[in-house]
C-alpha cells in the first residue's frame, strides 16, 4: 500500500492507494505554522484504517520551504559573490548582506584572476561582526571550475567556524550564475529549518512503526528519499503543482496534449502536458520574483478558485481574489464562484437552493436579474482561465531555439483535453471545455488527484556532464564533481555517454533508485570541435541523462 500526502494552502490531503484503487482518503485544514502537525494528523487518520506494516512507501508534498521563502522569516544570511568581469555589481541585489570578492573563472574553467586573501579575511570579519552565521558562496563559471568557491569556503570554515557555508557548485552545474547564486542563497536560508522538519518526520514515523520508504515530492514531479533531501531543500518548492500534474497524468495516462487545471479554494494552478510529458519552466522555478536553478513544471497560478468571493455593486459583479468561506451550497452563507456555476448549469452541488438564495441576494444588490449575474460571473471566470491558458501556450511557442533543426521543425500543438483536478473543477471545467471546444476530463479521483499523484510518482534524477578534451577537465552535475581525463586524446561522444551514465548509476544507488536507472534516457548530447588555426585542438562535450518523471513500477494505472 502506498500513502501520498499533499500539503496545500488550505487543506492537507492524504490517500492510501492500493492495486489501482484509492482505498482511503482524508483531509484536514493546513496549519501553516505547524506543517508537521498537519502531515501527522493526516497520516494518523490514514493509519487508523490501515496498519503501518502494510505501508510500503510514503510520499510527502510539503510547503515547508515554500512558506519559509514566501514569508521572509529567515535567519540573516550572507551572500559572497565572485563575479569577475561582466555585469555591474548592482545586477546582483540578492541579499542585503551581499559581499563581492575579486577572482575570475572563464567559460573553459580557466582561472583568470585569483582570490585576494586580504579581501577574503576582511569579508569574513565583516560577516562575523554582523552576527551572520550562514554564508552562500557563488562564483561565475564555478560549474566549470569550483576552485575559487572551494578556497573561499575553506578559508571561512577554518577561520570562522561558527559559520555554515553553502557552495554554488554543489547546488547546480547549469550555466546561469545569478540563478545559481540565488538558489545557493535560498538553500542557505532554508537548510537548517528543512533538516529539523526531516528530523521530526523521521522520528514521528519511527514512533508509528513505519518501515517503508519515505520520499519527498520535488518541483520536477519526481521524488527524493527524505534523507537525500537534506542537502537540497529548495528542490521541494512548488511540490503542490507537481503533485497535481503527476496526479493528472496518473488518472489520464495517455500521450495526449492536455492542460491541467487544479482548481482549489482561491487559486487555480495551470500546467501543460505535451505528448504525455509535463512542460517545464524554461528558466527554472521563479521564487520571490527571482529565477532559480530548481527544475519545476511550468505552472501558472491565478487567484481564482471555487470559493472565490463575489461582490456586487450597482450594475456589476466582481470575482474577488479572496474567499470568505466555503460556497453557499455547502453552508457558507455568501455566494461564490461555485454557486454561480451550480445555478447556471443545474449542477446539483451541495444544496442548490442555498446557492440560488445567496445569488438572489447578490443580484438584488447589483440591480440585476439572478440569471444575468450568474452569466456575468461565469463569463469572467471562463474568460480569465481561457486567457491564462492561451498565454501559457503563446509563451511555450515563443521559447527560444538554438539549432536550425529546432526552428524548421517548429512544434505544433493542438490541445486534446482539459484535465480537471480539485473539487471545484467539476463545476467549472465542463463549461470551459465547451467554450474552448475541447474535451473535458474529470476522473472520479479528481478531488484527491494531488495526493494520489504524490503517492505514485517515481524518483527522478538528472545528470549532466561537461567535458573539455583540451584542458582534460570534466565537470559533473549534481554535486559539483570534477576530475581530469586520462584518455582525452581519444575521448568520443560514446565515452561521454558512458561516463554520464556511470555517474547516474552511482548517485541512483546512493538515492535508493537503482531500479529506475534502467529507464534513464539522454536528453542532451552536444559535441563541438575546437578549431584553432585550421586544426582541431580538442572537443567539447555536453551530455545529459535523466530518469524523467513517471510512476513507480507497481503503479499500473487507476481502475476506471
Amino acid at each position, binding site marked *: 500500500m502506498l500513502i501520498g500526502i499533499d500539503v496545500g494552502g488550505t487543506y492537507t490531503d492524504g490517500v492510501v492507494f492500493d492495486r489501482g484503487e484509492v482505498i482511503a482518503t482524508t483531509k484536514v485544514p493546513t496549519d501553516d505554522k505547524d506543517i508537521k502537525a498537519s502531515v501527522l494528523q493526516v497520516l494518523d487518520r490514514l493509519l487508523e484504517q490501515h496498519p503501518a506494516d502494510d505501508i510500503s512507501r510514503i510520499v510527502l508534498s510539503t510547503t515547508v520551504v515554500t512558506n519559509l521563502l514566501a514569508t521572509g522569516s529567515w535567519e540573516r544570511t550572507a551572500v559572497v559573490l565572485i563575479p569577475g568581469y561582466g*555585469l555591474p555589481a548592482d545586477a546582483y541585489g540578492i541579499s542585503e548582506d551581499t559581499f563581492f570578492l575579486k577572482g575570475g573563472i572563464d567559460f573553459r574553467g580557466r582561472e583568470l584572476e585569483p582570490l585576494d586573501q586580504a579581501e577574503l579575511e576582511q569579508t569574513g570579519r565583516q560577516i562575523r561582526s554582523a552576527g551572520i552565521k550562514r554564508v552562500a558562496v557563488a562564483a561565475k563559471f564555478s560549474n566549470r571550475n569550483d576552485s575559487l568557491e572551494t578556497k573561499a569556503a575553506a578559508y571561512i570554515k577554518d577561520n570562522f567556524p561558527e559559520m555554515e557555508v553553502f557552495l554554488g557548485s554543489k547546488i547546480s552545474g547549469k550555466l546561469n550564475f545569478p540563478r545559481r547564486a540565488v538558489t545557493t542563497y535560498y538553500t542557505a536560508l532554508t537548510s537548517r529549518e528543512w533538516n529539523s522538519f526531516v528530523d521530526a518526520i523521521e522520528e514521528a514515523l519511527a514512533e508509528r512503526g513505519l518501515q517503508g520508504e519515505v520520499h519527498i515530492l520535488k518541483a520536477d514531479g519526481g521524488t527524493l528519499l527524505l534523507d537525500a533531501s537534506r542537502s537540497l531543500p529548495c528542490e521541494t518548492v512548488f511540490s503542490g503543482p507537481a503533485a497535481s500534474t503527476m496526479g493528472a497524468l496518473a488518472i489520464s495516462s495517455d500521450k495526449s496534449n492536455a492542460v491541467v487545471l487544479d482548481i482549489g479554494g482561491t487559486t487555480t494552478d495551470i500546467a501543460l502536458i505535451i505528448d504525455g510529458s509535463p512542460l517545464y519552466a524554461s528558466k527554472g522555478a521563479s521564487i520571490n520574483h527571482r529565477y532559480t536553478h530548481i527544475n519545476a513544471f511550468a505552472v501558472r497560478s491565478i487567484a481564482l478558485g471555487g470559493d472565490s468571493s463575489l461582490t456586487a455593486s450597482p450594475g456589476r459583479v466582481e470575482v474577488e481574489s479572496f474567499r470568505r468561506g466555503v460556497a453557499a451550497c455547502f453552508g457558507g452563507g455568501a455566494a461564490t464562484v461555485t454557486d454561480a456555476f451550480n445555478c447556471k448549469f443545474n449542477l446539483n452541488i451541495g444544496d442548490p437552493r442555498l446557492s440560488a438564495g445567496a445569488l438572489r441576494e447578490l443580484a438584488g444588490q447589483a440591480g440585476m436579474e439572478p440569471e444575468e449575474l450568474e452569466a456575468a460571473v461565469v463569463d469572467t471566470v471562463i474568460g480569465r482561465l481561457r486567457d491564462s491558458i492561451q498565454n501559457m501556450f503563446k509563451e511555450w511557442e515563443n521559447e527560444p*531555439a538554438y539549432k536550425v533543426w529546432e526552428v524548421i521543425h517548429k512544434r505544433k500543438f493542438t490541445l486534446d483535453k482539459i484535465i480537471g483536478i480539485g473539487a471545484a473543477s467539476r463545476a467549472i471545467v465542463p463549461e470551459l471545455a465547451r467554450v474552448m471546444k475541447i474535451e473535458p476530463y474529470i476522473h472520479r479521483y479528481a478531488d484527491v488527484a494531488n495526493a494520489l499523484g504524490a503517492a505514485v510518482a517515481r524518483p527522478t534524477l538528472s545528470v549532466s556532464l561537461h567535458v573539455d578534451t583540451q584542458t582534460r577537465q570534466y565537470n559533473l552535475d549534481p554535486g559539483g564533481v570534477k576530475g581530469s581525463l586520462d584518455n582525452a586524446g581519444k575521448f568520443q561522444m560514446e565515452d561521454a555517454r558512458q561516463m554520464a551514465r556511470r555517474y547516474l548509476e552511482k548517485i541512483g544507488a546512493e538515492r535508493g533508485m537503482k531500479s529506475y536507472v534502467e529507464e534513464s534516457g539522454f536528453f542532451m548530447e552536444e559535441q563541438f570541435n575546437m578549431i584553432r588555426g585550421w586544426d582541431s585542438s580538442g572537443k567539447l562535450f555536453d551530455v545529459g541523462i535523466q530518469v524523467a518523471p513517471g510512476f513507480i513500477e507497481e503503479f499500473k494505472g487507476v481502475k476506471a
Partner: protein
Amino acid sequence: MKPSGILFFPAFDWAITPTHPEREERLLYTRDQIFEEGIMDLPQVKEYQPGLAAPKDIARVHFCVPDIPAQITEAHLVSAGSALVLADAFMQGEIKNGFAIIRPPGHHSMSVSHGNRGFCNINNEAIMIEYLRRKYGARRVAIVDTDVHHGDGTQEIYYNDPDVLFISFHQDGRTLYPGSGFMEELGGPLAHGTTINLPLAPRTTDTGILYALDTLIMPLLEEFKPDLIINSAGQDNHYSDPLADMRFSAQGYAQLNARLSPDIAVLEGGYSVETALPYVNMALIMAMAGIDFSNLREPDYVPERMKESAGNLEYIKKMVKQQLAAFRQREEVIARNRKTDQHFHSRHKQIFYDTDYIHEEQSVKLRLCPDCAGFRLIESTAQHRNGQYYRVYCISIPINACPACQAEARSYYGDLSGNSRYDFIYLQDRIDDEYRSIDTGKDLEKVL
C-alpha cells in the same frame, strides 16, 4: 522603459566546412558567457525566438541564380528570418531596440547571388530593410557597417538608393578582403553621397574609431535624419580577431553602440571565438539595454597596448573632413548628374566569390530618370562550382521608383521573356511586391 530585444541564434548545427571560421563553434563561448551572466533574465532584456524568412523576403533583395533554393540552406532562412522577428518587435513597439546575434552572416552578399561570398549567401540587413519598407512604410534608413571588412554587398544593393545612407568603416581594402570600400566610392550618379566609406589603417584603436563615430558618423546621421538606424554589427575589428588586424576592444564596441544607439543591430563577422566574441556580444547587449558596462572587459585586455598614434589620428581627421564634404555636396552632384541626355548609365563589373571561387561578369545599366533614382538592368554571367554556366538578366525596380520607371522596367521583362540568350530572366518589382522569374530553357515562369 521597454526592454531590448535579443535574438540569439547560434546555428549550432550549421557550418560552411568543419574547420571554417563560420563553423558550429563560433558562438559557443558567447552562449556560455551570456547564459552564465544571466543577462537574458534581466528585465531590461527580452529574448526572442528565431523565425523563418519567406522566399519572397529574399526575392525582394536578391536575384538568386538559378533560384532561391540553390543559394541557401535552411540556416540562411532562419538567420534572415530572425532579423525580421526583431524588426517586427521593434516596429510594433515591443522593444526599444534589438540585437540579432545570428549566423550565417550576410553583408558581403550583393543583388545577384551566384554563391557564397565572404561567408555570405544572402544579405540579412537588406532583407530586413526591404521587409520594413514594404510592411511598415519605413523609407529612409541608415546602415552603419561596423564590421572590419567593407560591407560591399550592402553597398552594392543600396549604391543607387538615395534614401539609404550606407556608412562603412573598415580596415583599408588594400590590406584586407574584399579589397573595396575606398573614399571615392560615394554612390551611383543619382544617389551620390549616401554611400560613405572610411578605410582605416590597420591597428586603429578605440580612440580612432570612436573619433570617426563622433565626428563623421553621428553628424551624418543627424543630417540625414533616417527613420531607422541599423548597425551591421561585425565584431572582427577586435584586437584578437584572426582574420584582420585592428585594435578595437569590447569597451570600444560598448561605447560605439551606446553612442550610435542603433534601432536594430545584426551580427556580421567576428572570428575570435574565445577571446573576443563572448565579451563583445556582452558589450553590445549591455550597451543597447542601457546596462552599465564599466565592469566589462576581456581577460587579456591591456589598455596601455592600445594607444592611438598621433599620425593615424591625423589621417582619420583628414578622411572625416573629406567625407563630410562629400556628403554635404551630394545634392549638387546628383543635380549635375541628372543633366544628361543619356538614357542609361552603364558599367561593367567583375565580382569574385572567394568562398566558392566564382568569377562573375556583370554589366549594369542604371536608368538616369529625371524624376526618381531610376531602376537597374543587370546582365550577369558566371560559372558555378558545379560546372554549370549561367547567363541571366535581372530587372530591379526599387520601392521609390517613379511610375514611368516602373512601367519601362516591366516592359523589358515582357520583351525579353522569350529570349533564349539568357538562361533566366528575373523581375524584381518592389513597388508591386512582385517577383518573377523565367527559366527560358523550360519556358517556365515562377511568380512570388
